[in-house]
Every structure is written in structure tokens, then in C-alpha cells.
């Protein structure tokens, strides 16, 4: 590191616009990683100031106070104080405060100042403050605080010019370190009041637009209706935009694989390239559009300030099953795919609530289960009317969705009672002002999520896909074999071995075998069943073949199995990545296996007794 590099730490309350300011300063030149051992994001970026000096900027997690209760706040405090292991103390702290919310944010500024390090205060959102008629005597505020104060507008190009000029100049002198005890903490509020009284004039406490919007958004009836409409639109968009792109990617890789296959001699190597490599890559990258579309909406809703409102409306409902309102959006996303859902749990502040949400997210019926449900329901459930109104097939599909939700509620409830740490879970959630989401912030957020998925998961999933290919290809069928090749492979052996485990829930060895590729991606169960039942890939033909060869009890049992089974391995990989713990992977796999087995057992035995 050159001597002219200046290390700057950005700190501030949540919702002060700190990340927008960070994005404005550093653009796409960011490095996102996790702090060691915790899933708190460490974001660093750099830019070159007009003087030629390189400024290295660390975006610290938002904090309300240094009396740290969450891992985020502990890290922010320790890095600022210069005693976080492995992190050099910052040369300068830039404390960001929302100019429209100084009552809350100035208190934290005073806390930062007491660390006795050089501090610059950036009064952010000054444009909004002016338009709301808030008048701030900046020179007087600076004099009373004893800190340099600059005005910024993080959402405008050039909105950080004053800040850049200030940090590019001389580093301000540090205030003396002050003790941190209960008495001095109470004193901080008195100081804030004094500062506000002498430097800020505010016509009204809140923005009129917020009051007006909240009257509708939080209304007991209209609020819930608006939420339902928003969620409906998000889901429509996921299926209308994400799913076709996913299919296109899958087909594209299949097409490329086909072309490569034409160039290669027949044999296991060709099968590896076509089925393992291209097939696997197609599956993995096929997730990407769905993830990006979902995250586009999650980020937009988050930036706009609507997400905390949704959490407010649903908190009570979620609390009854041991969750929090903040769990709602990740769980809802899991109906498209559990992977973005689990990645979305980062917005849940209480670590216990977050783990519970991660563990039950895979029980939401994701889109990959649909091909399997469609095949089995089409083959076994007659399309007759029940109660003269509903189609029985639709009723069964609905029941499977419901089974997932009820199962998740049950698991949430059980976890709530099993947990040793019974201390109260806090909601204590700020509802920030509504804001128009900025394209730059949404785009950078999307890029980060996409990269996390590609970088961390592609290797794991690809490796496992190749392993699956290996198991179902070797050893090859002997000369003169009459059965499909997969029967002679390792997968065939494993399928027959698994049959002992699965016989009590009505799975024959062919079904047991199909469960192996289904673990890589659920929808491949259809292709695997097609392979072993000696029919082409056409679902109608396969449906008839299945209906002829599998008893109804086994089919129903298989449906229930898919509702609860520990799948797919991409989900387990993301649980590992997001919780940094194999224990959570094991718990998640274990409870889902037991649950699926028990439910399938009951369904199989009861159906058999009745038919």
C-alpha cells in the first residue's frame, strides 16, 4: 500500500443513504466479501481523488449505536475503534447522517466522535431536507460539534463533490477520547436536543408524502390488499420474464451440447461433456434469470422503503409460528426458488429468526417441483370435478402447496419451542421514508447477488453434477444387455440398495433410483423415470407407463415425498454459504428427510389400506 493511500471508513445509521454514497464514490469498483466467521458483508472500494491520492473506502454495516447488540454493530464499532483483528484502523471516519432525520442520527455522530478519531460528518439527503423546508445552520453545527461538516446528495451525480474535496484535503484533528458509561450516554440525548434547538429548524416532523402513503400502505384492509397485488405482480413477472429465460438458457446449453456431441466420437467422454458439463451448466445458469428477476424486485422494494411496511403488516401472523415479519419476503421468494429466498434472509436482523427462516424456506413449493407434480398428478389423479366446482387435479396440486406451508409452520413452531435461548425477539424496526429507487444502486445490488451465486455455487453444483453423471454412466452395460444402461451403473446399485430404505413408503427401485438425480435438480426426476421406464421424453407416454406400473399408493407417497424431501443440493450449498455452518446443512437435510419419510409412510400405508 502506497504512503499516499488514505483509509476511510463510512459509518452511519441504517437508512442514512450510506451505501448509495459508497456506490456514488466507488461505482462498480467494489469488493464484497464476508468478515471472517460471520455473515456480515464487508464492502470495500477505492477511487482516486483529484490530487492523485488513492482513497480506500470501507462501507461499514449500519448501526444505531455502539452499545452493540448485533454482530453488524459490533464489527462497525471495533473497526472504527481500530481494534478489529485483521483490519487496519481507518485514517478517517466519514460519518453519514440523514439531514431529514437528525434527531436520531446526530446521537450516533456524537458516539462516533467520542472514539477520539478524525471524523468528518456528511449531511446526506440535503436536497430532500431543503424541499421539506428543513433549515440547517451548517457552520454553526460544525462549530458546536467540533467536526468538519459537508453536505452531500448521494443520489445525484456530483452529489459527493464537497465530501471528496474535504477528505482529499488535510485530515482533521481528532477529538479527545471520552468515556462510555450510562450517565454519559443519557447525556448524549441532551446534547442532541441542544444541537437541534440551536442549528435546525424543521416545519414538521415527517414528510407529508410519507404520511399520505402510509395511510394507505398500512391500512388494515387496503394495506393487505396492496401487499397482495404487489406480490402477485412480482410472481407474474418471475414466471413471465424469469422462467422463459431460464428455459432458454437450458435449451441453449442443450443445443450447444448437441453440436459438441456431433464433433466427438461416441463414448463416455462425449457423455461427460454433453450430459455432465453442458447439462449441468445449463441447470446451474438456468437458475440465474429467476434469481435476478426476483432480486430486482426485492432490491427495488427494499430501496423504496416498502419492504419494512410489508414486514409491519405481516409481523403478527409470522410471529405465531416463531418468525418475524421480515421472514415473509424471503419465504415468498422461495416459492419461485429457495436459493434467492435464502440469500434474501440477510435483511432479517435477529440471527435466530434468520436461521429458522433459512431452514424452512426449502419447504415452500418451488418451481422445480412443478414438472414432477404435473407428471404424477396427470398420470394418477383423474380429472373429475369435486363438489361440482373444482377439478380434482387442481385440488391435489393446491393441497401439495398447502402441505409445504403447513409443514413450514409446524417446523417453525417446533423450533421456537426447542430453542434454548428463549429471550425475547425484538422487532424494533425503523420504517424509513419512501424513496424512489435509483438505477445505480439496484444494478450494483443485482450484480453482487448474481456474482455470489455464480462464484460460490457453480463449482459445487458442477462438481456434483459430474459426480451424478459418473454414477449413472459407470460401469457401462455389458454386451447383449437387455435393460437400460443405467440399471447396470453405480446409480442402479445405489437405487436397489436405497429400495430397502424406501420400500416401507412404497418406492420401487426405479423410483428410488430417480431420487438420485432429483437430488441434483428435482425436475430431472422426470427424465430419470423416463429412462428407466423405457419410454421417450414425452410426458404423456411416460404418464401412461407410470400409471400402468406404479400403484396409486406409491404415486401419492412420491408426491408427498417431493413436497418435503431434502432437495436440491444447490439449496443445501446455499445454506452452507449463507450460514457458514455444516451443522445447519445437516439439520436441514436431517429434519426434511425425517419429515418426508414420515409423511410419505402415512400416505402410503393409509392409501394402501383404503384401496
Amino acid at each position, binding site marked *: 500500500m502506497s504512503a499516499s493511500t488514505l483509509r476511510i471508513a463510512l459509518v452511519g445509521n441504517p437508512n442514512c443513504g450510506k451505501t448509495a454514497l459508497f456506490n456514488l464514490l466507488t461505482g462498480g469498483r467494489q469488493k464484497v466479501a464476508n468478515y471472517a466467521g460471520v455473515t456480515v458483508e464487508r464492502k470495500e472500494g477505492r477511487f482516486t481523488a483529484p490530487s492523485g491520492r488513492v482513497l480506500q473506502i470501507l462501507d461499514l454495516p449500519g448501526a*444505531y*449505536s455502539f*452499545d452493540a*447488540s448485533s454482530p453488524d454493530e459490533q464489527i462497525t464499532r471495533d473497526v472504527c475503534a481500530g481494534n478489529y483483528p485483521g483490519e487496519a484502523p481507518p485514517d478517517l471516519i466519514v460519518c453519514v447522517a440523514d439531514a*431529514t*432525520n*437528525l*434527531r*436520531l442520527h446526530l*446521537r450516533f455522530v456524537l458516539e462516533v466522535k467520542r472514539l477520539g478519531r478524525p471524523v468528518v460528518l456528511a449531511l446526506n439527503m440535503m436536497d430532500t431536507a431543503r424541499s421539506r423546508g428543513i433549515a440547517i445552520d451548517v457552520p454553526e453545527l460544525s462549530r458546536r460539534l467540533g467536526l468538519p461538516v459537508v453536505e452531500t446528495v448521494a443520489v445525484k451525480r456530483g452529489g459527493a463533490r464537497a465530501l471528496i474535496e474535504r477528505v482529499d484535503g488535510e485530515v482533521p484533528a481528532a477529538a479527545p477520547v471520552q468515556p462510555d458509561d450510562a450517565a454519559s*450516554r*443519557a447525556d448524549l*440525548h441532551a446534547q442532541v436536543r441542544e444541537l437541534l434547538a440551536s442549528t435546525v429548524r*424543521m416545519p414538521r*416532523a*415527517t414528510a407529508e408524502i*410519507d404520511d399520505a402513503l*402510509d395511510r394507505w400502505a*398500512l391500512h*388494515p*384492509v387496503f*394495506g*393487505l390488499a396492496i401487499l397482495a397485488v404487489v406480490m402477485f405482480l412480482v410472481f407474474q413477472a418471475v414466471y413471465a420474464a424469469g422462467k422463459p429465460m431460464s428455459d432458454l438458457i437450458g435449451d441453449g446449453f442443450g443445443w450447444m451440447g448437441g453440436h459438441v456431441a456431433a464433433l466427438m466420437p461416441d463414448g463416455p467422454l462425449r457423455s461427460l461433456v454433453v450430459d455432465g458439463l453442458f447439462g449441468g451448466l445449463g441447470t446451474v445458469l438456468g437458475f440465474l434469470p429467476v434469481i435476478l428477476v426476483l432480486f430486482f424486485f426485492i432490491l427495488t422494494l427494499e430501496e423504496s422503503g416498502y419492504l*419494512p411496511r410489508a*414486514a*409491519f*403488516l405481516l*409481523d*403478527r*401472523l409470522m*410471529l405465531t409460528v416463531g418468525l418475524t*415479519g421480515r421472514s415473509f419476503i424471503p419465504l415468498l421468494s422461495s416459492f419461485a426458488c429457495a436459493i434467492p429466498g435464502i440469500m434474501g434472509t440477510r435483511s432479517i436482523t435477529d440471527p435466530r429468526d434468520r436461521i429458522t427462516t433459512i431452514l424452512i424456506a426449502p419447504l415452500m413449493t418451488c418451481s422445480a417441483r412443478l414438472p414432477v407434480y404435473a407428471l404424477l398428478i396427470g398420470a394418477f389423479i383423474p380429472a373429475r370435478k369435486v363438489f361440482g366446482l373444482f377439478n380434482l387435479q387442481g385440488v391435489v396440486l393446491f393441497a401439495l402447496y398447502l402441505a409445504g406451508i403447513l409443514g413450514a409452520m409446524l417446523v417453525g413452531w417446533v423450533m421456537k419451542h426447542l430453542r434454548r435461548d428463549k429471550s*425475547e425477539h*425484538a*422487532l*424494533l*424496526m*425503523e*420504517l424509513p421514508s419512501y424513496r424512489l429507487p435509483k438505477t445505480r444502486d439496484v444494478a450494483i445490488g443485482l450484480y453482487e447477488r448474481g456474482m455470489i451465486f455464480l462464484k460460490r455455487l457453480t463449482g459445487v453444483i458442477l462438481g456434483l453434477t459430474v459426480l451424478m453423471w459418473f454414477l449413472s454412466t459407470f460401469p457401462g452395460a455389458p454386451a447383449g444387455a437387455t435393460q437400460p444402461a443405467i440399471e447396470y451403473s453405480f446409480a442402479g446399485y445405489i437405487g436397489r440398495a436405497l429400495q430397502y430404505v424406501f420400500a416401507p413408503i412404497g418406492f420401487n427401485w426405479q423410483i428410488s433410483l430417480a431420487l438420485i438425480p432429483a437430488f441434483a435438480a428435482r425436475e430431472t426426476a422426470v427424465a430419470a423415470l423416463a429412462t428407466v421406464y423405457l419410454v421417450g421424453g414425452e410426458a404423456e407416454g411416460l404418464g401412461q407407463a407410470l400409471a400402468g406400473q406404479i400403484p396409486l399408493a406409491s404415486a401419492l407417497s412420491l408426491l408427498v415425498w417431493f413436497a418435503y424431501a431434502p432437495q436440491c443440493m444447490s439449496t443445501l450449498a446455499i445454506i452452507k454459504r449463507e450460514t457458514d455452518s455444516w451443522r445447519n446443512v445437516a439439520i436441514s437435510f436431517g429434519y426434511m428427510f425425517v419429515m418426508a419419510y414420515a409423511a410419505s409412510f402415512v400416505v402410503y400405508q393409509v392409501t394402501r389400506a383404503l384401496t
Partner: protein
Amino acid sequence: MRLSELPKGAPAVVERVDDAHAADPIAQRLRDLGFVDGEPVRVVAVGPMGGDPLLIQIGFTRFALRRAEAARVSVRSEVAA
């Protein structure tokens, strides 16, 4: 009076935050967020199910508090004060 008992829209002033148990982190957090003596406070909205959580306006900020959290805050009606 407790903040959880305050009628919606009625102006009040915070008196203090009481610990629900020894070293109550939620009470401490409430104090840090500005629930201190003399601060004007108001219930802006209530949740659609069972009137929980509450949306509280304090200072220039709005917080969603569950009833159990709001019950830690002791308030007096502004008219009476």
C-alpha cells in the same frame, strides 16, 4: 401509562423506559433510539392482526414496535402534562 396503552393518534411524552428484566437489551436499544424523558411520541398506526405491532412516531423517525416492546415505555398524556 404505557406506550402500548396509548390510543392511536393521541399526543404523549416519554417519561422513561423500564427494563423488563435485568440488563434488558431491548430497553437499552429503545433508549438509544431516542425513547428518553420529555420526547414527544405518538402511535401512528396499528398492525392489521390483533393490533400488533404498533407504528410509533418519535422525533423524526417511525419505528414498528411489538406491544411487548412498547409496554416498556412509560408515557404521560401531553394534555395532562
